[in-house]
Protein backbone atom coordinates (compact mmCIF):
# COMPACT_ATOMS: atom_id res chain seq x y z
CA UNK A 1 0.00 0.00 0.00
CA UNK A 2 1.69 3.21 -1.11
CA UNK A 3 1.77 6.40 0.94
CA UNK A 4 -0.29 8.17 -1.69
CA UNK A 5 -3.14 5.63 -1.66
CA UNK A 6 -3.29 5.76 2.12
CA UNK A 7 -3.38 9.56 2.03
CA UNK A 8 -6.23 9.46 -0.48
CA UNK A 9 -8.16 6.90 1.62
CA UNK A 10 -7.66 9.10 4.68
CA UNK A 11 -8.95 12.22 2.93
CA UNK A 12 -11.83 10.31 1.35
CA UNK A 13 -12.91 8.98 4.74
CA UNK A 14 -12.88 12.44 6.35
CA UNK A 15 -14.83 13.83 3.39
CA UNK A 16 -17.38 11.02 3.78
CA UNK A 17 -17.72 11.79 7.49
CA UNK A 18 -18.44 15.44 6.79
CA UNK A 19 -20.74 14.56 3.96
CA UNK A 20 -22.79 12.56 6.47
CA UNK A 21 -22.98 15.58 8.79
CA UNK A 22 -24.07 17.81 5.91
CA UNK A 23 -26.66 15.27 4.77
CA UNK A 24 -28.02 15.10 8.32
CA UNK A 25 -28.32 18.88 8.41
CA UNK A 26 -30.06 18.68 5.03
CA UNK A 27 -32.70 16.37 6.51
CA UNK A 28 -33.51 18.83 9.27
CA UNK A 29 -33.19 21.91 7.06
CA UNK A 30 -36.96 22.17 6.85
CA UNK A 31 -37.08 22.23 10.64
CA UNK A 32 -34.73 25.16 10.75
CA UNK A 33 -36.11 27.26 7.91
CA UNK A 34 -39.64 25.91 7.56
CA UNK A 35 -41.16 24.34 4.46
CA UNK A 36 -41.18 26.60 1.42
CA UNK A 37 -44.69 25.66 0.41
CA UNK A 38 -47.58 24.12 2.25
CA UNK A 39 -46.76 20.40 2.09
CA UNK A 40 -50.17 18.92 1.27
CA UNK A 41 -51.20 20.93 -1.83
CA UNK A 42 -47.69 20.78 -3.28
CA UNK A 43 -48.02 17.02 -3.92
CA UNK A 44 -50.94 17.24 -6.30
CA UNK A 45 -50.58 19.89 -8.97
CA UNK A 46 -53.53 22.26 -9.21
CA UNK A 47 -55.77 20.01 -11.28
CA UNK A 48 -58.82 20.16 -9.11
CA UNK A 49 -58.28 22.71 -6.35
CA UNK A 50 -60.55 22.00 -3.45
CA UNK A 51 -63.00 24.86 -3.19
CA UNK A 52 -63.18 24.99 0.59
CA UNK A 53 -59.69 24.27 1.91
CA UNK A 54 -57.70 26.33 -0.59
CA UNK A 55 -55.27 28.25 1.61
CA UNK A 56 -56.13 31.85 0.96
CA UNK A 57 -53.81 34.75 1.53
CA UNK A 58 -54.01 36.09 5.02
CA UNK A 59 -55.27 32.82 6.42
CA UNK A 60 -53.49 31.69 9.62
CA UNK A 61 -51.19 28.65 9.37
CA UNK A 62 -49.83 28.37 12.88
CA UNK A 63 -50.89 28.81 16.45
CA UNK A 64 -48.04 30.19 18.53
CA UNK A 65 -47.84 30.35 22.31
CA UNK A 66 -46.38 33.78 23.05
CA UNK A 67 -46.58 33.86 26.82
CA UNK A 68 -46.70 31.58 29.84
CA UNK A 69 -44.82 28.37 30.68
CA UNK A 70 -45.29 26.82 27.22
CA UNK A 71 -43.94 29.89 25.44
CA UNK A 72 -42.45 29.08 22.04
CA UNK A 73 -44.69 26.10 21.29
CA UNK A 74 -45.99 26.12 17.73
CA UNK A 75 -48.93 24.06 16.53
CA UNK A 76 -49.58 23.87 12.80
CA UNK A 77 -53.17 24.54 11.93
CA UNK A 78 -54.93 21.92 9.86
CA UNK A 79 -58.60 21.27 9.39
CA UNK A 80 -58.89 19.76 12.86
CA UNK A 81 -60.10 21.73 15.85
CA UNK A 82 -57.65 22.47 18.66
CA UNK A 83 -58.59 21.95 22.27
CA UNK A 84 -56.81 23.76 25.06
CA UNK A 85 -56.92 22.86 28.72
CA UNK A 86 -55.43 20.84 31.53
CA UNK A 87 -56.82 17.50 30.33
CA UNK A 88 -54.02 15.27 29.04
CA UNK A 89 -55.85 14.62 25.77
CA UNK A 90 -56.06 18.32 24.91
CA UNK A 91 -54.05 19.42 21.89
CA UNK A 92 -52.29 22.00 24.03
CA UNK A 93 -51.91 20.72 27.59
CA UNK A 94 -51.62 23.49 30.16
CA UNK A 95 -50.45 23.10 33.74
CA UNK A 96 -51.96 26.23 35.02
CA UNK A 97 -54.13 26.48 38.10
CA UNK A 98 -56.16 29.17 36.36
CA UNK A 99 -57.07 26.95 33.41
CA UNK A 100 -59.94 24.48 33.38
CA UNK A 101 -59.41 20.93 32.18
CA UNK A 102 -61.37 21.65 29.00
CA UNK A 103 -60.92 25.34 28.73
CA UNK A 104 -61.37 26.49 25.16
CA UNK A 105 -61.55 25.26 21.61
CA UNK A 106 -60.32 26.72 18.32
CA UNK A 107 -61.92 25.52 15.12
CA UNK A 108 -61.93 26.57 11.46
CA UNK A 109 -65.09 27.76 9.77
CA UNK A 110 -65.35 29.33 6.31
CA UNK A 111 -61.65 30.15 6.23
CA UNK A 112 -61.70 31.74 9.67
CA UNK A 113 -60.62 30.37 13.01
CA UNK A 114 -63.17 30.66 15.76
CA UNK A 115 -62.46 30.57 19.50
CA UNK A 116 -65.06 29.13 21.80
CA UNK A 117 -64.96 29.03 25.58
CA UNK A 118 -65.99 25.59 26.86
CA UNK A 119 -67.52 26.84 30.10
CA UNK A 120 -64.23 27.50 31.86
CA UNK A 121 -64.08 28.85 35.40
CA UNK A 122 -61.80 31.79 34.77
CA UNK A 123 -62.77 32.63 31.20
CA UNK A 124 -61.01 33.07 27.89
CA UNK A 125 -60.04 36.52 26.72
CA UNK A 126 -59.66 37.67 23.13
CA UNK A 127 -57.46 40.75 23.38
CA UNK A 128 -59.17 42.51 26.33
CA UNK A 129 -62.71 41.24 26.04
CA UNK A 130 -64.09 38.05 27.52
CA UNK A 131 -65.21 35.42 25.03
CA UNK A 132 -68.85 34.65 25.73
CA UNK A 133 -69.85 33.09 22.43
CA UNK A 134 -67.83 31.66 19.51
CA UNK A 135 -65.84 34.59 18.13
CA UNK A 136 -63.62 34.80 15.01
CA UNK A 137 -59.94 35.28 15.81
CA UNK A 138 -58.04 37.81 13.66
CA UNK A 139 -54.32 37.28 12.98
CA UNK A 140 -51.93 38.35 15.73
CA UNK A 141 -54.57 39.14 18.34
CA UNK A 142 -53.68 37.56 21.70
CA UNK A 143 -55.97 34.97 23.25
CA UNK A 144 -55.41 34.78 26.99
CA UNK A 145 -56.10 31.62 29.01
CA UNK A 146 -54.85 31.79 32.58
CA UNK A 147 -51.16 32.60 32.30
CA UNK A 148 -50.91 31.43 28.69
CA UNK A 149 -51.12 33.76 25.70
CA UNK A 150 -51.77 32.39 22.23
CA UNK A 151 -51.73 34.03 18.80
CA UNK A 152 -52.57 32.91 15.29
CA UNK A 153 -49.91 33.61 12.71
CA UNK A 154 -49.44 33.12 9.00
Amino acid at each position, binding site marked *: *MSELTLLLIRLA*FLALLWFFVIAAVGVIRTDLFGPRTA*PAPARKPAKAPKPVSKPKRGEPRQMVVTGGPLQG*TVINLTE*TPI*TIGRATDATL*VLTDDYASSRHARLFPQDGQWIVEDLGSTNGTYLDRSKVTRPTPVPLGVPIRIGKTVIELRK
Partner: protein
Amino acid sequence: MTAKRRGAQLAMLAFAVLIVMGAYASVGLGIDGQIPAGMLTYGLGLGALMLAAYLVLAKWAPWADPLLLPLVTLVNGIGLVMIYRIEQTGQDGASATTQLMWTALGVVMFSATLIVLKDHRALQRLTYTAGFAGLALLLLPLLPFIGREINGARIWVGVGRFSIQPSEFAKILLVVFFAGYLVAKRDVLALAGRRLLFIDLPRARDLGPVLITWAVSLGVLVMQKDLGSSLLLFGAFIAMLYVATQRTSWVLIGILLFVGGAVLAGQVFSHVEARFDGWLNASSPEMYDREFGSTYQLMQGLFAIGSGGILGTGLGQGHPRQIPLSFSDFIFSATGEELGLTGLMAILMVYALIVERGLRTSLAARDPFSKLLAGGLSFILAWQVFIIVGGVTRLIPLTGLVTPFMSAGGSALLANWMLIALLVRMSDAARKPPPQAIQDEGLTQVMQR
Protein backbone atom coordinates in the same frame (compact mmCIF):
# COMPACT_ATOMS: atom_id res chain seq x y z
CA MET B 1 -43.39 18.60 10.92
CA THR B 2 -46.11 16.35 9.70
CA ALA B 3 -44.04 14.16 7.39
CA LYS B 4 -42.73 10.87 8.77
CA ARG B 5 -39.51 11.05 6.68
CA ARG B 6 -39.09 7.28 6.86
CA GLY B 7 -37.15 7.17 3.57
CA ALA B 8 -34.68 9.80 4.72
CA GLN B 9 -34.18 7.83 7.92
CA LEU B 10 -33.45 4.58 6.12
CA ALA B 11 -31.07 6.29 3.69
CA MET B 12 -29.17 8.00 6.50
CA LEU B 13 -29.00 4.72 8.41
CA ALA B 14 -27.53 2.93 5.38
CA PHE B 15 -25.08 5.82 4.94
CA ALA B 16 -23.95 5.53 8.58
CA VAL B 17 -23.38 1.77 8.28
CA LEU B 18 -21.49 2.35 5.01
CA ILE B 19 -19.18 4.86 6.71
CA VAL B 20 -18.51 2.38 9.51
CA MET B 21 -17.65 -0.36 6.99
CA GLY B 22 -15.40 2.10 5.18
CA ALA B 23 -13.68 2.81 8.49
CA TYR B 24 -13.08 -0.95 9.05
CA ALA B 25 -11.59 -1.30 5.59
CA SER B 26 -9.45 1.77 6.17
CA VAL B 27 -8.13 0.35 9.46
CA GLY B 28 -7.12 -2.88 7.75
CA LEU B 29 -5.47 -1.10 4.83
CA GLY B 30 -3.63 1.16 7.25
CA ILE B 31 -2.27 -1.69 9.37
CA ASP B 32 -1.23 -4.34 6.83
CA GLY B 33 -2.47 -3.24 3.44
CA GLN B 34 -5.36 -5.71 3.38
CA ILE B 35 -9.08 -5.40 3.86
CA PRO B 36 -9.68 -7.13 7.21
CA ALA B 37 -11.54 -10.41 7.22
CA GLY B 38 -13.91 -9.19 9.92
CA MET B 39 -15.16 -6.24 7.90
CA LEU B 40 -18.16 -7.97 6.40
CA THR B 41 -19.23 -9.73 9.60
CA TYR B 42 -18.85 -6.61 11.72
CA GLY B 43 -20.38 -4.33 9.11
CA LEU B 44 -23.28 -6.63 8.33
CA GLY B 45 -23.73 -7.37 12.04
CA LEU B 46 -24.06 -3.68 12.79
CA GLY B 47 -26.26 -3.21 9.73
CA ALA B 48 -28.60 -6.02 10.79
CA LEU B 49 -28.83 -4.67 14.34
CA MET B 50 -29.70 -1.20 13.14
CA LEU B 51 -32.21 -2.55 10.65
CA ALA B 52 -33.90 -4.35 13.54
CA ALA B 53 -33.90 -1.14 15.59
CA TYR B 54 -35.31 0.71 12.59
CA LEU B 55 -38.13 -1.81 12.13
CA VAL B 56 -39.08 -1.59 15.81
CA LEU B 57 -39.05 2.18 15.53
CA ALA B 58 -41.16 2.14 12.37
CA LYS B 59 -43.72 -0.10 14.01
CA TRP B 60 -43.95 1.35 17.52
CA ALA B 61 -42.92 4.97 17.04
CA PRO B 62 -43.67 5.79 13.40
CA TRP B 63 -43.63 9.56 13.86
CA ALA B 64 -40.30 9.60 15.64
CA ASP B 65 -37.50 11.91 14.64
CA PRO B 66 -35.78 10.53 11.51
CA LEU B 67 -32.25 11.49 12.52
CA LEU B 68 -31.75 10.20 16.06
CA LEU B 69 -31.16 6.56 15.10
CA PRO B 70 -28.73 7.17 12.16
CA LEU B 71 -26.68 9.67 14.18
CA VAL B 72 -26.36 7.30 17.13
CA THR B 73 -25.51 4.45 14.75
CA LEU B 74 -22.60 6.45 13.38
CA VAL B 75 -20.99 7.28 16.73
CA ASN B 76 -21.58 3.76 18.02
CA GLY B 77 -20.03 2.37 14.84
CA ILE B 78 -16.99 4.66 14.96
CA GLY B 79 -16.53 3.56 18.57
CA LEU B 80 -16.63 -0.10 17.49
CA VAL B 81 -14.05 0.54 14.77
CA MET B 82 -11.74 2.36 17.17
CA ILE B 83 -11.98 -0.44 19.71
CA TYR B 84 -11.30 -2.99 16.96
CA ARG B 85 -8.33 -0.91 15.90
CA ILE B 86 -6.98 -0.70 19.46
CA GLU B 87 -7.51 -4.45 19.89
CA GLN B 88 -5.22 -4.91 16.87
CA THR B 89 -2.39 -3.18 18.75
CA GLY B 90 -2.74 -5.75 21.51
CA GLN B 91 -3.73 -3.43 24.33
CA ASP B 92 -5.21 -5.38 27.23
CA GLY B 93 -8.96 -5.19 27.71
CA ALA B 94 -9.95 -3.87 24.28
CA SER B 95 -12.38 -6.26 22.65
CA ALA B 96 -14.47 -5.34 19.64
CA THR B 97 -16.50 -8.55 19.91
CA THR B 98 -17.59 -7.73 23.46
CA GLN B 99 -18.46 -4.22 22.39
CA LEU B 100 -20.52 -5.50 19.46
CA MET B 101 -22.33 -7.83 21.84
CA TRP B 102 -23.09 -4.92 24.18
CA THR B 103 -24.29 -2.89 21.19
CA ALA B 104 -26.68 -5.74 20.38
CA LEU B 105 -27.93 -5.72 23.98
CA GLY B 106 -28.24 -1.93 23.71
CA VAL B 107 -30.47 -2.29 20.66
CA VAL B 108 -32.52 -4.88 22.55
CA MET B 109 -32.96 -2.40 25.43
CA PHE B 110 -33.84 0.32 22.93
CA SER B 111 -36.51 -1.87 21.35
CA ALA B 112 -37.82 -3.08 24.71
CA THR B 113 -38.17 0.48 25.99
CA LEU B 114 -40.06 1.52 22.87
CA ILE B 115 -42.36 -1.50 22.97
CA VAL B 116 -43.09 -1.44 26.70
CA LEU B 117 -43.38 2.30 27.14
CA LYS B 118 -46.30 3.25 24.91
CA ASP B 119 -46.75 6.63 26.55
CA HIS B 120 -43.84 8.27 28.29
CA ARG B 121 -46.18 10.33 30.44
CA ALA B 122 -46.74 7.18 32.49
CA LEU B 123 -43.30 8.00 33.94
CA GLN B 124 -44.70 11.14 35.51
CA ARG B 125 -46.70 8.97 37.90
CA LEU B 126 -43.47 7.24 38.94
CA THR B 127 -41.70 10.48 39.86
CA TYR B 128 -40.79 9.60 43.42
CA THR B 129 -40.29 5.90 42.70
CA ALA B 130 -37.77 6.91 40.05
CA GLY B 131 -36.12 9.27 42.49
CA PHE B 132 -35.65 6.62 45.17
CA ALA B 133 -34.60 3.95 42.69
CA GLY B 134 -32.06 6.34 41.18
CA LEU B 135 -30.65 7.22 44.57
CA ALA B 136 -30.49 3.54 45.57
CA LEU B 137 -28.63 2.65 42.36
CA LEU B 138 -26.25 5.51 42.96
CA LEU B 139 -25.44 4.31 46.47
CA LEU B 140 -25.38 0.58 45.63
CA PRO B 141 -21.60 0.39 45.06
CA LEU B 142 -21.01 1.58 48.62
CA LEU B 143 -22.48 -1.63 50.01
CA PRO B 144 -20.01 -4.23 51.24
CA PHE B 145 -19.51 -7.51 49.29
CA ILE B 146 -21.12 -6.44 46.00
CA GLY B 147 -19.54 -3.00 45.66
CA ARG B 148 -16.22 -2.93 43.82
CA GLU B 149 -13.48 -0.44 43.48
CA ILE B 150 -11.80 -0.44 40.06
CA ASN B 151 -9.09 2.04 39.14
CA GLY B 152 -9.70 4.08 42.26
CA ALA B 153 -13.41 4.73 41.80
CA ARG B 154 -16.00 2.82 43.78
CA ILE B 155 -18.74 2.87 41.16
CA TRP B 156 -19.09 -0.80 40.30
CA VAL B 157 -21.37 -3.55 41.44
CA GLY B 158 -20.31 -7.08 40.68
CA VAL B 159 -21.32 -10.67 41.10
CA GLY B 160 -18.65 -13.12 40.01
CA ARG B 161 -17.02 -12.00 36.78
CA PHE B 162 -19.96 -9.87 35.82
CA SER B 163 -19.96 -6.24 36.88
CA ILE B 164 -22.09 -3.24 36.05
CA GLN B 165 -21.97 0.45 36.75
CA PRO B 166 -25.34 1.34 38.30
CA SER B 167 -24.74 5.11 38.19
CA GLU B 168 -25.23 5.01 34.41
CA PHE B 169 -28.83 3.89 34.89
CA ALA B 170 -29.30 6.12 37.92
CA LYS B 171 -28.77 9.22 35.83
CA ILE B 172 -31.79 8.47 33.63
CA LEU B 173 -34.00 7.71 36.63
CA LEU B 174 -32.88 10.89 38.35
CA VAL B 175 -33.67 13.00 35.27
CA VAL B 176 -37.17 11.45 35.27
CA PHE B 177 -37.44 12.37 38.95
CA PHE B 178 -36.22 15.94 38.41
CA ALA B 179 -38.69 16.41 35.55
CA GLY B 180 -41.66 15.14 37.56
CA TYR B 181 -40.64 17.06 40.67
CA LEU B 182 -40.07 20.34 38.85
CA VAL B 183 -43.38 20.15 36.97
CA ALA B 184 -45.10 20.02 40.34
CA LYS B 185 -43.00 22.59 42.13
CA ARG B 186 -41.83 25.03 39.52
CA ASP B 187 -44.39 27.73 40.18
CA VAL B 188 -43.30 27.95 43.79
CA LEU B 189 -39.66 27.97 42.79
CA ALA B 190 -40.21 30.56 40.07
CA LEU B 191 -42.62 33.00 41.65
CA ALA B 192 -41.94 33.28 45.36
CA GLY B 193 -38.94 35.29 46.46
CA ARG B 194 -37.41 38.71 46.70
CA ARG B 195 -35.58 40.78 44.14
CA LEU B 196 -32.07 41.89 45.02
CA LEU B 197 -30.14 44.09 42.60
CA PHE B 198 -30.76 42.38 39.26
CA ILE B 199 -31.46 38.78 40.30
CA ASP B 200 -34.52 37.26 41.90
CA LEU B 201 -33.59 35.48 45.09
CA PRO B 202 -35.62 32.40 45.99
CA ARG B 203 -37.07 31.92 49.46
CA ALA B 204 -34.79 30.18 51.93
CA ARG B 205 -37.10 27.19 52.41
CA ASP B 206 -37.27 26.57 48.65
CA LEU B 207 -33.54 25.96 48.69
CA GLY B 208 -34.14 22.56 50.30
CA PRO B 209 -34.15 20.35 47.18
CA VAL B 210 -31.15 22.18 45.72
CA LEU B 211 -29.21 21.64 48.94
CA ILE B 212 -30.16 17.96 49.06
CA THR B 213 -29.03 17.35 45.48
CA TRP B 214 -25.87 19.27 46.24
CA ALA B 215 -25.17 17.14 49.30
CA VAL B 216 -25.82 13.90 47.40
CA SER B 217 -23.57 14.87 44.51
CA LEU B 218 -20.80 15.91 46.88
CA GLY B 219 -21.30 12.62 48.72
CA VAL B 220 -20.79 10.77 45.44
CA LEU B 221 -17.65 12.80 44.85
CA VAL B 222 -16.15 12.08 48.24
CA MET B 223 -17.28 8.52 48.99
CA GLN B 224 -17.15 6.97 45.53
CA LYS B 225 -14.34 9.17 44.23
CA ASP B 226 -16.40 9.74 41.14
CA LEU B 227 -16.06 13.36 40.09
CA GLY B 228 -17.75 12.69 36.73
CA SER B 229 -21.09 11.40 38.04
CA SER B 230 -21.12 14.07 40.70
CA LEU B 231 -20.72 16.84 38.13
CA LEU B 232 -23.21 15.18 35.78
CA LEU B 233 -25.88 14.85 38.44
CA PHE B 234 -25.64 18.36 39.80
CA GLY B 235 -25.32 19.95 36.34
CA ALA B 236 -28.44 18.15 35.15
CA PHE B 237 -30.42 19.34 38.15
CA ILE B 238 -29.36 22.96 37.78
CA ALA B 239 -30.00 22.97 34.02
CA MET B 240 -33.48 21.51 34.48
CA LEU B 241 -34.21 23.95 37.29
CA TYR B 242 -33.28 26.76 34.95
CA VAL B 243 -35.44 25.37 32.13
CA ALA B 244 -38.38 25.00 34.51
CA THR B 245 -38.20 28.37 36.23
CA GLN B 246 -36.31 30.55 33.72
CA ARG B 247 -34.48 32.19 36.60
CA THR B 248 -30.79 32.93 36.39
CA SER B 249 -30.46 33.10 40.16
CA TRP B 250 -30.76 29.28 40.41
CA VAL B 251 -27.88 28.84 38.00
CA LEU B 252 -25.71 31.28 39.95
CA ILE B 253 -26.59 29.63 43.26
CA GLY B 254 -25.88 26.21 41.76
CA ILE B 255 -22.49 27.14 40.34
CA LEU B 256 -21.44 28.87 43.56
CA LEU B 257 -22.51 25.87 45.66
CA PHE B 258 -20.71 23.37 43.46
CA VAL B 259 -17.50 25.34 43.09
CA GLY B 260 -17.50 26.06 46.84
CA GLY B 261 -18.13 22.40 47.64
CA ALA B 262 -15.51 21.15 45.21
CA VAL B 263 -12.85 23.56 46.52
CA LEU B 264 -13.63 22.54 50.09
CA ALA B 265 -13.52 18.85 49.16
CA GLY B 266 -10.23 19.50 47.37
CA GLN B 267 -8.69 20.79 50.57
CA VAL B 268 -10.04 18.08 52.84
CA PHE B 269 -9.75 14.93 50.73
CA SER B 270 -6.49 13.95 49.12
CA HIS B 271 -7.88 12.14 46.08
CA VAL B 272 -9.90 15.18 45.01
CA GLU B 273 -6.88 17.38 45.55
CA ALA B 274 -4.77 15.05 43.39
CA ARG B 275 -7.24 15.49 40.54
CA PHE B 276 -6.97 19.27 40.68
CA ASP B 277 -3.18 19.09 40.94
CA GLY B 278 -2.98 16.84 37.92
CA TRP B 279 -5.16 19.21 35.97
CA LEU B 280 -3.29 22.42 36.81
CA ASN B 281 0.26 21.05 36.58
CA ALA B 282 -0.23 18.19 34.14
CA SER B 283 2.96 18.78 32.21
CA SER B 284 5.32 19.16 35.18
CA PRO B 285 7.85 16.31 35.36
CA GLU B 286 7.01 15.45 38.99
CA MET B 287 3.33 14.91 38.13
CA TYR B 288 4.15 12.98 34.95
CA ASP B 289 6.53 10.58 36.68
CA ARG B 290 4.61 10.14 39.90
CA GLU B 291 3.80 6.56 40.78
CA PHE B 292 0.22 7.16 41.97
CA GLY B 293 -2.12 9.65 40.36
CA SER B 294 0.35 10.60 37.68
CA THR B 295 -0.72 12.58 34.64
CA TYR B 296 1.04 10.14 32.31
CA GLN B 297 -2.23 9.02 30.71
CA LEU B 298 -3.55 12.55 30.27
CA MET B 299 -0.31 13.78 28.72
CA GLN B 300 -0.06 10.77 26.39
CA GLY B 301 -3.60 11.56 25.25
CA LEU B 302 -2.67 15.17 24.60
CA PHE B 303 0.44 14.11 22.67
CA ALA B 304 -1.74 11.78 20.58
CA ILE B 305 -4.21 14.53 19.71
CA GLY B 306 -1.30 16.84 18.94
CA SER B 307 0.42 14.36 16.63
CA GLY B 308 -2.87 13.86 14.80
CA GLY B 309 -2.87 17.48 13.70
CA ILE B 310 -5.48 18.76 11.29
CA LEU B 311 -6.02 15.67 9.14
CA GLY B 312 -4.88 12.88 11.48
CA THR B 313 -2.46 10.05 10.86
CA GLY B 314 -5.11 7.98 9.13
CA LEU B 315 -7.03 5.03 10.60
CA GLY B 316 -4.73 2.20 11.61
CA GLN B 317 -1.62 4.33 11.48
CA GLY B 318 -1.55 6.02 14.89
CA HIS B 319 -0.14 4.70 18.16
CA PRO B 320 -3.16 4.29 20.46
CA ARG B 321 -1.23 1.75 22.51
CA GLN B 322 0.82 4.58 23.97
CA ILE B 323 -2.24 5.82 25.87
CA PRO B 324 -3.30 3.64 28.80
CA LEU B 325 -7.01 2.70 28.59
CA SER B 326 -7.25 4.25 25.13
CA PHE B 327 -10.35 2.15 24.41
CA SER B 328 -12.43 3.48 27.28
CA ASP B 329 -11.85 6.87 28.91
CA PHE B 330 -9.38 8.04 26.30
CA ILE B 331 -11.07 6.82 23.13
CA PHE B 332 -11.53 10.42 22.13
CA SER B 333 -7.77 11.04 22.20
CA ALA B 334 -7.09 7.85 20.23
CA THR B 335 -9.68 8.89 17.64
CA GLY B 336 -8.18 12.37 17.57
CA GLU B 337 -4.79 10.97 16.64
CA GLU B 338 -6.10 8.93 13.73
CA LEU B 339 -8.82 11.23 12.39
CA GLY B 340 -7.28 14.57 13.35
CA LEU B 341 -9.11 17.78 14.13
CA THR B 342 -11.28 17.37 11.03
CA GLY B 343 -12.58 14.00 12.18
CA LEU B 344 -13.05 15.05 15.81
CA MET B 345 -15.05 18.08 14.70
CA ALA B 346 -17.27 15.85 12.55
CA ILE B 347 -17.86 13.53 15.52
CA LEU B 348 -18.61 16.46 17.81
CA MET B 349 -21.03 17.76 15.16
CA VAL B 350 -22.82 14.42 15.19
CA TYR B 351 -23.16 14.65 18.99
CA ALA B 352 -24.37 18.23 18.63
CA LEU B 353 -26.99 17.11 16.13
CA ILE B 354 -28.21 14.35 18.47
CA VAL B 355 -28.59 16.94 21.23
CA GLU B 356 -30.24 19.38 18.82
CA ARG B 357 -32.84 16.73 17.90
CA GLY B 358 -33.48 16.17 21.60
CA LEU B 359 -33.93 19.86 22.33
CA ARG B 360 -36.11 20.19 19.25
CA THR B 361 -38.28 17.40 20.68
CA SER B 362 -38.44 19.32 23.92
CA LEU B 363 -39.60 22.45 22.09
CA ALA B 364 -42.22 20.55 20.11
CA ALA B 365 -43.58 18.61 23.10
CA ARG B 366 -47.05 19.64 24.17
CA ASP B 367 -46.92 19.11 27.92
CA PRO B 368 -44.43 20.42 30.50
CA PHE B 369 -43.31 17.00 31.76
CA SER B 370 -42.20 15.92 28.28
CA LYS B 371 -40.54 19.28 27.73
CA LEU B 372 -38.48 18.96 30.90
CA LEU B 373 -37.71 15.26 30.39
CA ALA B 374 -36.57 15.69 26.79
CA GLY B 375 -34.60 18.81 27.72
CA GLY B 376 -32.98 17.06 30.68
CA LEU B 377 -32.05 13.92 28.76
CA SER B 378 -30.53 15.93 25.91
CA PHE B 379 -28.71 18.03 28.43
CA ILE B 380 -27.08 15.08 30.21
CA LEU B 381 -25.93 13.70 26.87
CA ALA B 382 -24.35 17.02 25.93
CA TRP B 383 -22.97 17.56 29.42
CA GLN B 384 -21.40 14.08 29.41
CA VAL B 385 -19.64 14.75 26.10
CA PHE B 386 -18.47 18.11 27.42
CA ILE B 387 -17.12 16.67 30.69
CA ILE B 388 -15.15 13.86 29.10
CA VAL B 389 -13.90 15.79 26.06
CA GLY B 390 -13.08 18.74 28.32
CA GLY B 391 -11.26 16.29 30.59
CA VAL B 392 -9.07 14.65 27.97
CA THR B 393 -8.26 17.99 26.37
CA ARG B 394 -7.42 19.46 29.81
CA LEU B 395 -10.07 22.15 29.73
CA ILE B 396 -11.46 20.90 33.05
CA PRO B 397 -10.12 18.36 35.57
CA LEU B 398 -10.17 14.84 34.15
CA THR B 399 -13.05 12.68 35.33
CA GLY B 400 -13.77 9.06 34.64
CA LEU B 401 -16.87 9.48 32.49
CA VAL B 402 -17.43 7.47 29.33
CA THR B 403 -17.74 9.07 25.92
CA PRO B 404 -21.38 8.23 25.12
CA PHE B 405 -21.71 5.36 22.60
CA MET B 406 -17.98 5.31 21.81
CA SER B 407 -16.12 4.06 24.89
CA ALA B 408 -15.91 0.38 25.65
CA GLY B 409 -18.30 -0.40 28.49
CA GLY B 410 -21.58 -2.23 28.66
CA SER B 411 -23.51 -0.32 31.31
CA ALA B 412 -23.02 3.04 29.66
CA LEU B 413 -23.96 1.69 26.24
CA LEU B 414 -27.16 0.11 27.54
CA ALA B 415 -28.13 3.21 29.51
CA ASN B 416 -27.47 5.56 26.60
CA TRP B 417 -29.50 3.41 24.21
CA MET B 418 -32.38 3.58 26.70
CA LEU B 419 -31.95 7.34 26.85
CA ILE B 420 -32.22 7.52 23.06
CA ALA B 421 -35.30 5.28 23.17
CA LEU B 422 -36.96 7.75 25.55
CA LEU B 423 -36.12 10.65 23.23
CA VAL B 424 -37.48 8.69 20.27
CA ARG B 425 -40.67 7.93 22.18
CA MET B 426 -41.15 11.60 23.04
CA SER B 427 -40.36 12.84 19.54
CA ASP B 428 -42.94 10.38 18.26
CA ALA B 429 -45.54 11.85 20.60
CA ALA B 430 -44.56 15.41 19.75
CA ARG B 431 -44.59 14.99 15.97
CA LYS B 432 -47.75 12.93 15.76
CA PRO B 433 -50.59 15.02 14.32
CA PRO B 434 -53.36 15.83 16.78
CA PRO B 435 -56.21 13.30 16.96
CA GLN B 436 -58.88 13.65 14.29
CA ALA B 437 -62.46 14.33 15.24
CA ILE B 438 -64.89 11.91 13.63
CA GLN B 439 -67.92 13.80 14.75
CA ASP B 440 -67.66 17.41 15.65
CA GLU B 441 -70.97 18.59 17.00
CA GLY B 442 -71.66 20.00 20.40
CA LEU B 443 -69.33 19.84 23.34
CA THR B 444 -68.53 16.13 23.18
CA GLN B 445 -66.17 15.04 20.46
CA VAL B 446 -65.45 11.53 19.29
CA MET B 447 -61.75 11.26 18.59
CA GLN B 448 -59.90 8.83 16.36
CA ARG B 449 -56.47 8.14 17.83
